[in-house]
């Protein structure tokens, strides 16, 4: 096992290559350009396909073609580019094609800026394109997880025939950390893809589509999709609980914000205050049961996001026994400071009865 210092974006490239990516298609956008450059530098030498597309619309459609042909395909982008990909993601979902899509989020709406943000949570978890669908959404909070989750995303995509999104941000993409390169990686058996379009050799034609004109047929197709989603909800919801067994205040945060909360919580623990962190790893399916289990001693929940409040809705929908939910949110590329989180937690635990105004700009 070797440890290498690398950026989160480079870790995505490493994870994809180790997962056996066959085809990468992408379009430049900051702050994820190290991924497309890394793929361009490495894939051709490995005999795998790399192509810079003319747009994100085209990139995701190229992924569609490669996935339809049975190959492991991936694209990456950042918020405005991911918006353009929503068309293709809906088609991938309707056609039940496995694909991996990385969103290195930046500030929005519109062109916004290139600073880290978490404003695309709704788009990622609710299905940003048309129709009733979900994608599996994984939220790394370290460079190591950028690699590991990217690696795992390909298996999940193949297993459930579903697009898997890595929802991360410019902070995790750009920062460098030591990263373990496990070698060889634990390898699941590659899933057979008997449905792929490969030339109808000795068999009937395959037609991969999301079009089902008769309402009864489309209803049946949708029921099959929903059945798959329910299975994923049962089996794949994941979260990390940190010091929640006796926690009276439980931070709920994902990605970069979870790191801030973990550090703030540890500082408060040193002061003897019972603070913990519940970090959703899958944003869809949302780990509601894991959240509930982390709240045994909780008096308050504090949701921390780099957004106006999106993850907080899933917390509210998670049947948290009427616990008060506080919110700390920052937008536009800003993030709460650890000092601020510590002060907030301290205040909550020292005067638990007092009603506190939320500090977020909701």
């Amino acid at each position, binding site marked *: 096992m070797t440890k290498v210092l690398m950026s989160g974006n480079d870790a995505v490239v490493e994870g994809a290559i180790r997962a056996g990516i*066959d*085809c990468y298609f992408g379009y430049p956008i900051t702050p994820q350009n190290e991924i497309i450059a890394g793929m361009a530098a490495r894939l051709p030498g490995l005999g795998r396909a790399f192509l810079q597309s003319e747009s994100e619309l*085209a990139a995701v459609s190229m992924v*569609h*073609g490669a996935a339809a*042909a049975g190959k492991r395909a991936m694209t990456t982008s950042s918020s405005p580019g991911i918006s353009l990909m929503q068309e293709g993601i809906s*088609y991938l979902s309707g056609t039940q094609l496995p694909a991996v899509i990385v969103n290195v989020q930046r500030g929005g709406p519109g062109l916004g800026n290139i600073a880290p943000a978490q404003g695309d949570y709704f788009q990622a978890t609710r299905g940003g394109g048309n129709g009733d669908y979900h994608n599996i959404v994984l939220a790394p909070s370290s460079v190591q997880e950028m690699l590991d989750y990217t690696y795992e995303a390909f298996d999940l995509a193949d297993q459930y025939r579903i697009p898997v999104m890595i929802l991360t941000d410019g902070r995790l993409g750009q920062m460098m950390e030591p990263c373990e390169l496990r070698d060889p990686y634990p390898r699941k058996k590659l899933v057979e893809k008997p449905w792929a379009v490969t*030339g109808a050799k000795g068999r009937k034609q*395959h037609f991969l*589509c999301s079009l089902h004109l008769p309402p009864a047929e489309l209803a049946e197709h949708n029921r099959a999709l929903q059945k798959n989603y329910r299975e994923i909800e049962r089996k794949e919801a994941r979260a990390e609980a940190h010091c929640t067994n006796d926690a009276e205040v439980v931070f709920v945060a994902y990605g970069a914000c979870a790191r801030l909360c973990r550090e703030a919580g540890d500082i408060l623990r040193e002061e003897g205050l019972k603070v913990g962190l519940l970090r959703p790893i899958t944003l869809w399916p949302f780990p509601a049961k894991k959240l509930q289990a982390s709240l045994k001693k909780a008096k308050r929940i504090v949701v921390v996001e780099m957004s106006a409040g999106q993850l907080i809705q899933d917390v509210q929908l998670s049947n948290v026994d009427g616990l008060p939910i506080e919110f700390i949110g920052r937008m536009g590329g800003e993030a709460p400071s650890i000092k601020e989180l510590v002060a907030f937690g301290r205040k909550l635990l020292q005067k638990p009865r007092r009603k506190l105004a939320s500090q977020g700009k909701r």
Partner: protein
Amino acid sequence: MTQTEKKVFARTEVLTSQQTHYCPGCGHGIVHRLVAEALDHFGLREKTVCVAPVGCSVLAYKYLAIDMSEAAHGRAPAVATGVKRARPDLFVFTYQGDGDLAAIGTAEIVHAANRGENISVVFVNNAVYGMTGGQMAPTTMLGQKTTTSPAGRNLQSEGSPIKVAEMLSALDAPSYIARVTVDKPAAVRKAKQAILTAFQRQIDGKGFSLVEVLSPCPTYWRMPAAKAMSAIEDTMVKVFPLGVFKDKEAANGNQTA
């Protein structure tokens, strides 16, 4: 079969026996047949992936017994690129209409052509949106009445029809670009020859090829089928001249198949 009997006509292997949903007098049926015959000619049925568009021919998979993938409206060249890059050993072509290729999918077709992507494109130009009910297409001719140009296409406000074959011929990479029609038997034979040439280019690894087929839409040209056929020569060919617009092999002194 006795010795004096000779089989002169048969269903092609690629064409299914499914009755098409196309309107009477529509050109898609003829073009489907030509594509099927070309695939048969090269023995490609079992190594082909066709990317179907959004438009009247969205149901082409019912008529062509080959592997097919859907694409979002206009994105067929991008999906085909994905298939071809993933499996360069497969024969990959798109079948697209004018709204799909020349309006919403302009970026995708231009860049697939410009990359010299080793795919073939069958582009059916009938100068109107058929599936959505006869709206103005990028190839609708000046003065042509549609539901969204009820007074006829106007140069000042809507511009001229896009000449796809000419436009893409300005690019360096494409190997073969031709415009044909299917308004009479002789023209159909020429159209088949062009499709065979285009397919041959992909088989030979020569890169991008496109055949634009001028095709009648009696329903939304609002005329009887026979009149629509003659309107191609009387009107359409004057705007969209027939011919080979780009032929790299001929330019290189090689004989075209």
